[in-house]
């Protein structure tokens, strides 16, 4: 079995989540004909390579009351966008912060940061913090609030 095949099988076996038993890696291995040690070793390698970002829990922000979500978009000086983007991405309440291409003249924004709050007022406050952080490097911004989920599916490999 080549390593990519093993990785693929491990992804398939764990994308629904880790088994909630005292020895979860052994349980995964039992299903794949591997030892628990072999599973942990391979998962460690996938963590090291970045194929797995981390092993952990993903909270549902809606359930925790964070129901306002706005896609904030910023027109940031190309020379400074990478350094500033890293700082924006580290702010609390920010997720999915990316540099993306402008589509001029309609779309001047090159930095995207998803903002989450319990209300639109909180989202606006977060945007104000980002605006202050970007300072003169930012020529303009907008916040696109979502008003409906039109489709949402789980990710598949």
């Amino acid at each position: 079995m080549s390593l990519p095949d093993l990785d693929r099988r491990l992804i398939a076996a764990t994308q629904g989540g880790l088994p909630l038993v005292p020895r979860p890696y052994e349980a995964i291995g039992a299903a794949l004909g591997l030892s628990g040690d072999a599973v942990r070793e391979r998962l460690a390698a996938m963590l090291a390579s970045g194929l797995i970002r981390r092993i952990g829990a993903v909270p549902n922000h809606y359930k925790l009351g964070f129901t306002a979500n706005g896609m904030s978009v910023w027109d940031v000086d190309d020379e400074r966008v990478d350094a500033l983007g890293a700082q924006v991405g580290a702010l609390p309440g920010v997720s999915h912060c990316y540099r993306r291409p402008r589509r001029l003249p309609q779309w001047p924004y090159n930095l995207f940061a998803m903002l989450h709050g319990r209300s639109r007022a909180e989202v606006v406050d977060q945007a104000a913090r980002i605006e202050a952080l970007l300072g003169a490097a930012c020529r303009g911004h907008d916040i696109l609030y979502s008003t409906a989920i039109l489709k949402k599916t789980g990710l598949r490999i």
Partner: protein
Amino acid sequence: MQADDGAGPQAGTDTFIDSADARLIEHLHGGFPLTDRPFADVAAVLGCGEDEVIEQLRRMLAQGVLTRFGPLFQIERAGGCFVLAAIAAPEERFDAVTAMVNARPEVAHNYRREHALNMWFVVATETPAAADAVLDRIEAETGLVVSRFPKEREFAVELRLPIAEALRVTA
């Protein structure tokens, strides 16, 4: 169609987690150990029992407080490709355009947003060329320009909510 943002918390969406839940969620932001008995190791740090940690996770998953517990994959490293795209859909055709976009199995999610570009969706494919082919096809079917915003650089990918702060407000 599910309401999303709205002006504030919607009735019934708040779940009151307790301080032990908040501590566990925050602790797991640092990563779940790759050890023989990882729940026991987490429990030792938090000062509770292995069974309690497992039961807490089981309950929060069942309640929907957690959407997932396990490895979080970076799909691009597995050869996958995501492209964000947007359309300015005329109001009178909005539902028809939505149906055309959503009909493509490669469209992973799609949001209505308040802007001239009022439909924002993500296409997930094996390769960038395949993503372009899907977006070309949507353009042909809808007769509308599909603006493409591929990721050029990633600064943050997941949300770290101020959980403890949320707890103070809802408790």
